[in-house]
């Protein structure tokens, strides 16, 4: 008569998982962590100059905040928007306190990605070149770019995360994209004569 089924956490929405976490449900937390840890780690890694340890520290802090202050979550919003806005604020504070922006451009991090070999037939740009260009922008431009093209979020969601009007987000995205495109074109023009000289 009473057929009690334990909830399948994989099918639950993020918001419901958070509600279970408030009651100390470890399984719900595991599921939420599984869904977001890789995404957030990527975001921190790219935002903080490819520093693996720092990215992991930030990831841990982010989830500590979720455990400690779940009541700050506005149920009228999406959980993904909330978690990215916390992550963005963490990065913003880090940039302000340590002036990371300048350091990031100069640091030659040994922990960085092994660079993917560019596929000349398919891709005219290397991803690392894109990130090199992106490192010259501030945290708002970088976040908007990553959220739009990596996470595939809408302008509405990005504007909620960055706490900026939609028009500002659009113009920042346009500016970032345009500048990156220009720099990549310049780079490819510089590299082409070098290649021809080497071949010659």
């Amino acid at each position, binding site marked *: 008569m009473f057929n009690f089924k334990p909830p399948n956490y994989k099918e639950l929405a993020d918001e419901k998982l958070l509600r279970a976490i408030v009651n*100390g449900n470890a399984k719900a*937390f595991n599921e939420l962590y599984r869904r977001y840890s890789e995404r957030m780690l990527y975001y921190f890694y790219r935002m903080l100059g490819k520093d693996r340890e720092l990215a992991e520290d930030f990831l841990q802090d982010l*989830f500590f905040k979720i*455990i400690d202050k779940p009541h700050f979550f506005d149920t009228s919003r999406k959980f993904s928007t909330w978690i990215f806005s916390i992550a963005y604020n963490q990065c913003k504070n880090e940039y302000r306190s340590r002036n990371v922006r300048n350091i990031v451009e100069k640091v030659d991090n040994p922990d960085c990605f092994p660079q993917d070999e560019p596929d000349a037939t398919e891709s005219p*740009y290397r991803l690392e070149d894109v990130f090199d260009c992106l490192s010259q922008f501030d945290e708002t431009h970088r976040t908007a770019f990553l959220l739009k093209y990596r996470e595939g979020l809408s302008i509405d969601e990005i504007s909620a995360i960055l706490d900026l009007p939609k028009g500002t987000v659009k113009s920042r995205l346009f500016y970032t994209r345009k500048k*990156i495109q220009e720099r990549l074109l310049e780079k490819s023009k510089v590299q082409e004569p070098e290649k021809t000289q080497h071949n010659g």
Partner: protein
Amino acid sequence: MKKAKFKNQKKHSTMDNFEKHISRQLQNDKLPFSANPGILDRLIYHLQLKSANSAVHRNQILPSLSVLFATKLLAWKVGVATLLLISFMGYKQFNHHTSSTHIADTVQIMQAIDTTHFIMEDSAYMN
């Protein structure tokens, strides 16, 4: 005019291609490492610690009592206390069972006096 339009279209289409290309590359991009498993262990421990603390608090009576006597929401508390007092006083006023019996007894006594008076008249007549 047509040329300009064509140029704009071409520019727009290259921008779209660029966007698509960047988006595809970024979405396929993966970190060569995954998060340290120790992070999840620490987080779970923190979660359990927090829920254990809140469970202990939940079973205590003192916090609820302290809320009752705290200065917070004092106006509400005074209002509720006044309402309770008024209703108690009203209850006392309209439920005097013992005193009403006494009043009834008094009336009966007075009627008895009247009866005596009639008896006296009758007895006078008889005489």
